[in-house]
């Protein structure tokens, strides 16, 4: 029996029940349906993990959707080590966030709708990671995107929310266009869209080049870069990152689940899944590593000065995703997935804590209006503190192990840009620690800076919210223990302590690393120092002399303004793409054709066809003689054509 089918289809069932019967019957009990389903998925996922640990992987078609000639599309499932890790991450986070939402969304008008969407999202995400062919992957890919837009625009009465949904939609179009094109190229090259034959045959075509837009391009590089387009869209990497910070307009559980733990990591998953393709193309690898590195430092610097609690965490997510891309770019796929896995826990935790804070502050997001919350909400404080320690790479916690592995493999790996991205990664580690603790100190320490009314309202969140926080804390602390570097393992007396790397070996291979133990110790030391240094500096700035950051902001006003305005990327897009388009349409085209361009494109073509339509419809006179005459003429013309040809 295909037990694993329960994993995606339980949430789907929950979605159907909630969407069909939610309004009338389920109503306030909607969470039971969804939570039970997702928890069931989680149990089956754990069961699957046990099977996979025994070496039982699955790669089979459930049923054939379309079969026409050589074109075959099936719903098929591939369950290997990589899939299993993703299953555990998705179902665990999803379950905990579902539970959290019970408290967070309590009393919301669209309660059942919210849970229905969450379940649908979970279904799509699971289909995405469990696919054994590119088309199903694409289906899941678009599915999670769709749910994401629904949920970003969940408060659709709020203009900024629906605008953010639209922005996410449009920006993702760019990436998905490339992704779709990549799948088409794969089908044209291999005649199949299944992972297995594609990955086994890719070696044979790696040297081929094809002419693309007038350039001779290496086929593997072309496919890899097209797929990469999709990855950077979904994972919000430069230059398509602009949608993610705005996506924080959605409810916080959504930010935690979709925009931190699962959906946005789909890009990393794609890179890891297609590692046989990427590994054959050095240019694509270098691009991935550089884009990852640039995004990570870019986002980290912006996060330094922001005041919106959710946006800081969103930029932090961007930055950490950059880390994962960087890891894949240097060939350390295992490390990238490892970071994806640990990151899911501590980042979901950070978001949920932020949600808890917002809950207490009645929706207030501005750090400058908080402060001293630690005595009102001890659980939130403690869990968020641990999560921040983890993300900062404090030894022993989850974030430390995954981050350290990435940095070491970047440094010691064969990648031509390895040393460079290592340097950036280390700086980012420092910055990450700094902004994470800036957030902690500004929120929980010092005096309360909000209004009296707000202070009166402060309270710890209900159990349904704090329990998931505590459970996630376990993950934020301990999830990294499955991947302790062998170097450290020897010290504490565990052999092959980097169990995770061994586990992923059959799928992702073993990354190359050339370096001495001394070097590895040194690098570990540097990254730990960077993390602790960041925390220390934040403490000095925000616990000690509060005047320093103000002074710095004044003195380096130029830099501060750049960071505050997020490097003006939104403005850049606005000035280079959006406004010129509008300007051309309003001025030039309106001047020339006396009509608006939007109307020209959106309405012009249909209108032209409509014009033809209006003329053609006049042929239908309603007069019988005309009809008969047209029939006869038609027959005559056909006859003449065939007989006289």
């Amino acid at each position, binding site marked *: 029996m295909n037990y694993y089918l329960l994993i995606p289809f339980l949430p789907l069932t929950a979605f159907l029940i909630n969407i069909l019967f939610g309004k009338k019957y389920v109503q306030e009990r909607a969470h039971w349906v969804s939570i039970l389903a997702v928890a069931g998925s989680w149990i089956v996922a754990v069961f699957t993990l046990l099977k996979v640990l025994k070496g039982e992987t699955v790669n089979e078609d459930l049923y054939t959707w*379309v*079969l026409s000639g050589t074109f075959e599309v099936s719903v098929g499932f591939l369950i290997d080590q990589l899939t299993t890790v993703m299953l555990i991450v998705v179902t665990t986070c999803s379950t905990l966030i579902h539970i959290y939402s019970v408290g967070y969304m309590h009393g919301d008008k669209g309660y059942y709708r919210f849970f229905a969407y969450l379940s649908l999202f979970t279904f799509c995400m699971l289909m995405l990671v469990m696919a054994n062919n590119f088309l199903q992957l694409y289906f899941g890919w678009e599915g999670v995107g769709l749910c994401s837009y629904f949920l970003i625009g969940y408060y659709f009465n709020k203009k900024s929310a629906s605008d953010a949904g639209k922005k996410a939609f449009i920006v993702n179009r760019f990436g998905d266009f490339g992704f779709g094109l990549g799948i088409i190229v794969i089908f044209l090259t291999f005649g199949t869209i299944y992972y297995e034959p594609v990955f086994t045959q890719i070696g044979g075509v790696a040297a081929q080049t094809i002419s693309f837009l007038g350039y001779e391009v290496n086929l593997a590089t072309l496919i890899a870069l097209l797929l990469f387009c999709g990855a950077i869209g979904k994972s919000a990497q430069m230059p398509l990152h602009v949608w993610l910070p705005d996506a924080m307009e959605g409810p916080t559980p959504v930010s935690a689940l979709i925009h931190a733990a699962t959906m946005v990591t789909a890009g990393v998953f794609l890179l890891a899944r297609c590692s046989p393709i990427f590994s054959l193309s050095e240019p694509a690898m270098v691009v991935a590593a550089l884009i990852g590195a640039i995004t990570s430092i870019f986002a980290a610097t912006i996060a330094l000065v922001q005041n919106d609690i959710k946006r800081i965490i969103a930029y932090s997510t961007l930055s950490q995703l950059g880390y994962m891309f960087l890891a894949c770019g240097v060939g350390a796929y295992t490390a990238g997935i490892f970071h994806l896995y640990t990151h899911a826990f501590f980042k979901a935790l950070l978001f949920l804590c932020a949600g808890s804070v917002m809950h207490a502050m009645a929706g207030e997001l501005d750090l400058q209006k908080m402060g001293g919350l630690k005595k009102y909400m001890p659980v939130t404080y403690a869990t968020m503190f641990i999560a921040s320690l983890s993300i900062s790479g404090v030894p022993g916690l989850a974030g430390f192990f995954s981050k350290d592995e990435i940095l070491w493999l970047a440094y010691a790996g064969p990648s031509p840009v390895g040393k460079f991205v290592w340097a950036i990664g280390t700086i980012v580690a420092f910055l990450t620690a700094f902004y994470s603790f800036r957030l902690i100190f500004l929120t929980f320490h010092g005096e309360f800076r909000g209004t009296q009314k707000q202070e009166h309202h402060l309270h710890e969140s209900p159990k349904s919210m704090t329990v998931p926080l505590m459970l996630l804390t376990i993950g934020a602390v301990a999830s990294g223990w499955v991947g302790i570097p062998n170097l450290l393992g020897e010290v504490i007396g565990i052999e092959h302590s980097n169990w995770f790397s061994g586990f992923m070996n059959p799928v992702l291979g073993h990354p190359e690393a050339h370096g001495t133990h001394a070097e590895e110790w040194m690098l570990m030391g540097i990254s730990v120092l960077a993390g602790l240094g960041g925390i220390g500096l934040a403490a000095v700035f925000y616990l000690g002399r509060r005047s320093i950051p103000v002074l710095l902001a004044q003195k380096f006003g130029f830099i501060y303004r750049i960071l505050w305005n997020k490097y003006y990327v939104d403005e850049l897009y606005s000035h280079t793409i959006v406004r010129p388009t509008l300007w051309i349409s309003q001025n030039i085209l309106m001047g020339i054709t006396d009509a608006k361009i939007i109307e020209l494109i959106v309405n012009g073509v249909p209108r032209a066809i409509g014009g033809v*339509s209006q003329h053609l419809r006049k042929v*239908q006179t309603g007069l019988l003689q005309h009809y*008969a005459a*047209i029939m006869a003429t038609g*027959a005559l013309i*056909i006859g003449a054509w*065939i007989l006289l040809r």
Partner: protein
Amino acid sequence: MPEFVMPDLAPVMPEIVMTILALVTLIADIIFKRKETLAILSIASVVLVFFVLFGTPFKTTFNGMFIADGYSLFFKLIFLLNVVLTVLISMRYLVIERVNFGEYYSLILFATLGMMLMASAGDLIVLYLGLELMALSTYILAGFITYDMKSNEAAMKYFLLGAFASAFLLYGISMIYGLTGTTDLNAISEYIILNGLTANPVVMLSMILFAVAFSFKIAAVPFHMWAPDAYEGAPTSVTAFMSVGPKAAGFAVLGRVFLIAFGSVRMDWSAVLIPIAILTMGVGNIVALSQTNIKRMLAYSSIAHAGYALLGIIAGTGEGLASVMNYLLIYAFMNIGAFAVIIMLRTEGFKGDTITDYEGLAKSHPLAAALMLVFMFSLTGIPPTAGFMGKLYIFMSAVYAGYTWLVVVAVIFSAISAYFYLRIVMYMYMREPKESVSLAATPALGIALAITAAAVIIIGVLPSAVVSFARAAVAGF
């Protein structure tokens, strides 16, 4: 003097049972006052025929005039389905239109009997008679609302032009008979090949005349002129009936005659059908854009869909034929489903057949709007609905037969079609309701909608069962 030999009746059993039950329905009309009884009786008849159909051996009888095979079985299923769905959506509608008479059901059964004979015809004479039986019954049904001028006009135009098309068919039959001395499809094919008549002008002319007559039945341009007027004027339930049944029957005979009798001149008839297909898709989709009456819009949509289905015939392969059959089955579900929603809007004193009547339907009747959305998506061909699957298979078979450029044309017209289908969706969901619309929902209508909507989605998600059934049906062709 030839001896009378009792022919093997087993393969004709479904038709015999159908005839008997149609007569029973006719007599029951006198006995029962409640006409709903007749509706149930005719559905029961069809179900009975359905079971008989599956017990029928695949054989040829009546000197090769009647062929029972997988191909005819598949089409007969479409016809029977068409009857069930039409009857379900008719029951309340006939009361509203004040034409609740028993002959309606008998005529539907007789028309279906004609279609079944067409699908099984192995001889041009049987084919012609089946076609006339179907057509004459349908003419009457189109004019069933005798007090309504539009309905009368529809029947009149359909009848006169239909007679005109029949003349073409008879002319074609007489020509091929004059040349080959037979009306048997296989014998015609043999005669053409044996005597090397593949370039003979009489064969060409007769083939063209067949193409014209069948194009009329499937409403292909430029022989479609009757369709918009007839579809708009006829009672809505009859429009649903005749947009599916006669069209499918037309394709059944088109496939059989062209692939068997004219199989050796494939290149010539595809040269005839290709321009017809392009014109059909083009005119159907483009003129549909400027329609304001939803029945008329669906008439043009029905024309366009015939154009897509023609691609499968043009492909000329077994796979192409299977995809056409698959498409027609899917079309039966989605089109009758759409008509069921239209009928639901028809109440006493409210026509509900202009596009603006659908404004804000999602607010007042969310379920009806959602169903309409499913059918419109399917007609557009948006996955995961059945309409997408149907189009995909047709297009794939055409691509494999080497008609990629034709598929590109079809996809472009298909994209244009999205405009008018989705306009209905836009009206339903994006606009505010103008006046309160009440629905004439009945259990029967509910069953029809449930069947069609479920089928549209299930076939969209799990198409392989239907497709492999169609492929198996063609295999014994």
